[in-house]
C-alpha cells in the first residue's frame, strides 16, 4: 500500500528526497511525464489525447519534524521544531536523526528531579534534548551533525476495524490519493504536483503554481479530526468515517465557491459520503496557489486524521477510499477542467 510506504519514510520540510524517490519509483514505468524543479517539487503530467489540462492537483510531501541545532558536551542534541509542533507531544518519543536514520529518543529531566513548578507546566523545546546513546559530544558527532533533520520513528500499522496508525498522514495521505489517481487509467489527464515545504509556509506550492500557471487547483490534504472524547460536535472540525472533508475556507484561502459546489454535487450525485471541514483556521498550499500570477481558483479536500502533527496519527481506511472516489468522479465529470 502506497500510504504505508510513504508514511514510514522520513521527509521533514526541506528534506523530502526520500519521499520523492519513492514516488518516482512508483510512477516511473507509467505513461506519465515526470519533472523536478530546483526546490524539489515533483511535477507529474498525466497525458491524454485531449488538450493539455489546466487543472492542477497537489499534495505536499513534507512533514513536521525537528532539526539538530547543537551537539552538547554530554552527547545530547539540542533541536528546534521545523513546522508547527506542540512540544507536549515530544517527550519520550522515538526519533530518527540525519541521513543515516540514527535512532534516538527525546529525553527530559527525570520526573523525581523536576521541581513542583516544572511538573505543572508542559516542557518547552529548550528543556528537551535528543539522546542518541553517545557518552560525549565527540562520540555523538561521529553519527550526527548540526543541521541534521530529525523525524519521528513510527511504523505504519493497521488497527481495529479499518483504521490506520502512523506518522505524517499530513500529507502522505494526500500523496497516496494523488498516486491512486495518477495510476488509474480511468481518470482524465491532469497535472499533479508533489510539493515541498508546505509546513513552513507553502513555499514549494508558491513556485509550482507559478511554473504551471493552472486555471484551477485542488489541494489534497490530511487535516485535523477532533472527534475525540470531550469535544462537542460543533467544535470538531472533522470526524473520522464521514468521508472526505471539503474545506469552505481556511486562514490562507476562501475556497472558490463554484469548485465548492461542484465537489458537493459530485459527492451527492455519486453517493460518496462527504463532510465539510467545519473549521476555518490553519494554512494550506491552496493559499499560495490561489494568489499565483493572475490568480487561480482553488479548493481543498482532506482525509481526516486524529492527532495530526504528532508521532502517531489515526485515520480511517474508508475515508481514504472515499477521497479517491470523490476526486476521481470530480475529474471525470469534466468540471475539473
Amino acid at each position, binding site marked *: 500500500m502506497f500510504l504505508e510506504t510513504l508514511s514510514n519514510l522520513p521527509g521533514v520540510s526541506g528534506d523530502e528526497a526520500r519521499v520523492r524517490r519513492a514516488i518516482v519509483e512508483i510512477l516511473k514505468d507509467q505513461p506519465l511525464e515526470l519533472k523536478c524543479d530546483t526546490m524539489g517539487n515533483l511535477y507529474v503530467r498525466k497525458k491524454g489525447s485531449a488538450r493539455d489540462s489546466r487543472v492542477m492537483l497537489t499534495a505536499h510531501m513534507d512533514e513536521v519534524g525537528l532539526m539538530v541545532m547543537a551537539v552538547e558536551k554530554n552527547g545530547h542534541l539540542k533541536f528546534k521544531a521545523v513546522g508547527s509542533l506542540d512540544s507536549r507531544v515530544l517527550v519520550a518519543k522515538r526519533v530518527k536523526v540525519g541521513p543515516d536514520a540514527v535512532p534516538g529518543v527525546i529525553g527530559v529531566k527525570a520526573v523525581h528531579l523536576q521541581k513542583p513548578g516544572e511538573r505543572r507546566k508542559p516542557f518547552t523545546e529548550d528543556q528537551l534534548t535528543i539522546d542518541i546513546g553517545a557518552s560525549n559530544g565527540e562520540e555523538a558527532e561521529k553519527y550526527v551533525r548540526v543541521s541534521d533533520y530529525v523525524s519521528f520513528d513510527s511504523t505504519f500499522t493497521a488497527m481495529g476495524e479499518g483504521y490506520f496508525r502512523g506518522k505524517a498522514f499530513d500529507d502522505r495521505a494526500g500523496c497516496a490519493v494523488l498516486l491512486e489517481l495518477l495510476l488509474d487509467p480511468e481518470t482524465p489527464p491532469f497535472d499533479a504536483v508533489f510539493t515541498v515545504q508546505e509546513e513552513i509556509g507553502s513555499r514549494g506550492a508558491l513556485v509550482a503554481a507559478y511554473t504551471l500557471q493552472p*486555471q484551477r487547483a485542488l489541494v489534497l490534504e490530511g487535516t485535523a479530526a477532533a472527534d475525540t472524547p470531550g469535544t462537542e460536535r*460543533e467544535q470538531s472540525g472533522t470526524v473520522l468515517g464521514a468521508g472526505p472533508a471539503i474545506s469552505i475556507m481556511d486562514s490562507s484561502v476562501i475556497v472558490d465557491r463554484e469548485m465548492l459546489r461542484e465537489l458537493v454535487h459530485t459527492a451527492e450525485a455519486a453517493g460518496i459520503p462527504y463532510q465539510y471541514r467545519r*473549521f476555518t483556521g490553519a494554512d494550506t498550499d491552496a493559499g499560495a496557489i490561489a494568489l499565483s500570477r493572475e490568480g*487561480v481558483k482553488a479548493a481543498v479536500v482532506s482525509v481526516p486524521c486524529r492527532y495530526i502533527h504528532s508521532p502517531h496519527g489515526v485515520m480511517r481506511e474508508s475515508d481514504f477510499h472515499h477521497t479517491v472516489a470523490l476526486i476521481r468522479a470530480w475529474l471525470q465529470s469534466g468540471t475539473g477542467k
Partner: protein
Amino acid sequence: MEALMKSLCEAYGPSGEEKEIRALIENAVKDSVDRIYTDNLGNLLAVREGPEPALLLSAHMDEIGVIVTHIDENGFLRIAPVGGVAPHLLLGQRLRFKNGAVGTVYHEKLKELRDLDWSKLYLDLGAGSAAEAKNVAQIGDMACLHQPFDSLNGRYMAKALDDRVGCAILIETARRLAGAPLPQAICFLFSVQEEVGLRGATTAAYSIQPGYGLAVDVTRAGDTPKAPLMEVSLGKGPAIKVKDSSVICSPKVRRFMMEVASQHEIPYQLEVLERGGTDAGAIHLSRGGVPTGALSIPCRYIHTASEMVDAADIQNAVKLLEILCRTSWSEGVS
C-alpha cells in the same frame, strides 16, 4: 452620489462572495469606461484606454462577515469570522445571507463577558430544527451585517462603508472622466478578498502591470471621546496615507498627491496608521515593484454595523482623484 452609496453599502458581499456587489458596480461604471471584465478570482476591472504606463486605482468590494461552520439539531448555526470581526460587536446584530435570510447572533451562558469567543457564539435563524435551518443556510454559506444606510447631518452611517465608500468614489471619478482624453490609461480595480489579506489586489496587480498604483479605502479616525491617538478626524478632508502595516507609500507619489491637493485648495490630512492594511500593500510589491499611494476616507467604528464617514471628505476625495487622473503621473511623480 448618496443613492449610489446607499445601494453599495446595503448590498451583500463578504470576502469571496462578491458576485452581487460586483454586478451592482459593473452596472454603475460600465458606461464610463472602454472595457470591463472579471478575472479568475472575481476582481472587476474597468479600463479607460490611454498611454502607458497605466495608473491602477483600487477599492475593495468585499466586506467583513461570518461563515457557517456547523448546524446543530435544533437549527442553531455556529459561525467563524471572515476578516477582522470582533465577536462582541455581533451580539444582538442582525446578519443577512445571500438569499436574503436574516438571523441574529447571541452567546451561550458565560461566567464573564470576557470569556466571549467565537466558540460561544451562535446564529439564530428562527429555525425550529436542523432541517428548517438547512433550508435557509448551508455550512460554508456567508452572512454580512444587516443594517440600513442612514444619512445623518452631513455624515453617513452604514455597514460596509469599508470599502464601498472607496468603490463609490472610483465610480463617481470614472463618470466624471467619461469621454475626456486622459494622459494615461486608468484601470479602476474593484478588488475581492481585501479583508482576508489583500488577495484580489495581489493577482490583479500582477495581471495589470501598472506603472503607478493608488488605493482608496477607509482609515481610522481619532476624533471620538478618549480615542486612541490618531491624527485623523472626520470632515477635515481625505487622508493621504504615509504608511500602515502593509505599505510605506511611495514618497514621490505622496508628495505629488499633496502638491496637487494644495494647488487646487482641496483640504487633506496626513495619515499614519499603526495597524491595518490596504490594497496598496499588495500593489506596491507586484512584480518589479510599483510606486503606490493611498487616499483614505476617515471613518469611525470600522468593522462594525455602524461605520461613519463625512460627506465632505468624500466630495473632496472625488475632486482630488479626478484631478490626479487628469494629470500625467509619469511627469508628476518624480
